[in-house]
């Protein structure tokens, strides 16, 4: 999923953990050089029993994209991530489906000059079958 976000056109994350981390981090400590920055965290799974002892597993993940950008630029990133998801709904065959559940753009530092630090919070869900 991190690789998918890294591939979004117009969004260049710093390489390695300087740009993307598998955890929820202290965003206030992010330096300018670490922007834009992605946190991917909080996987939560629900399992539904199917016939023949099979299971349908739905897992949600939270993606937080931090950037010093305008609202319009952040909206563009949101659209870019959605387009990337729709272009690879199986994450290269790793899951049966991936889709965007919810997105929320939050403002921080209301008095800071533009482009100010903003966060785009996304909830995405994957679908797998087991058994």
């Amino acid at each position: 999923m991190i690789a998918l976000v890294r591939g979004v056109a117009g969004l260049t994350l710093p390489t390695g953990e300087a740009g993307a981390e598998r955890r929820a981090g202290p965003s206030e400590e992010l330096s300018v050089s670490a922007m834009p920055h992605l946190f991917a965290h909080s996987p939560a799974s629900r399992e539904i029993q199917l016939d023949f002892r099979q299971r349908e597993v739905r897992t949600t993940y939270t993606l937080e994209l931090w950037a010093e950008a305008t609202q319009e630029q952040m909206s563009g990133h949101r659209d870019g991530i959605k387009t990337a998801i729709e272009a690879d709904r199986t994450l290269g065959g790793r899951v049966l489906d991936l889709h965007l559940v919810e997105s929320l753009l939050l403002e921080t530092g209301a008095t800071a000059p533009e482009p100010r630090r903003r966060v785009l919070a996304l909830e995405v869900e994957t679908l797998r079958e087991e058994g």
Partner: protein
Amino acid sequence: MATAQQAQDAIAAKLEATLPSGTTPTRMATDLSTDLQPVPAGKTRYQLKAWAGPRSEVGDSNLIYRPVLDILMRVHYHLGAGEAERTWTSGSMHSALEAILDPGWWLTISEVFYLDSFPGLEETDVSRVGRVITFQLRARVTVDPNA
């Protein structure tokens, strides 16, 4: 005299011989439930739901009646890793159905005296849950009392 149990066993044996041997067709422990028994990937499991049907009159006699079995045959196949659905549905499943839908398939079973209704299935009798594909068909047979 052949019993309903013997007729079921004979039909089950013929079904096992008809389904692809590589999928090790095996009768499930229950014929009525599908929730708790797994079907391993690449394998077939089947159920024979059978019950006594209305008695069959022999010829034009109103004195001789023979036992009848109503049968619902259900075959489940769990797709192998990476196997496309159509590989099964248009391949081995199609071949098996062609064989079983032939009345001759049933009439060569010694315990089956007569086929009271041709075996058949409809679109809704082919279904998929998760990676398990199921087809089911119904038939009504008269059990041969002399077998």
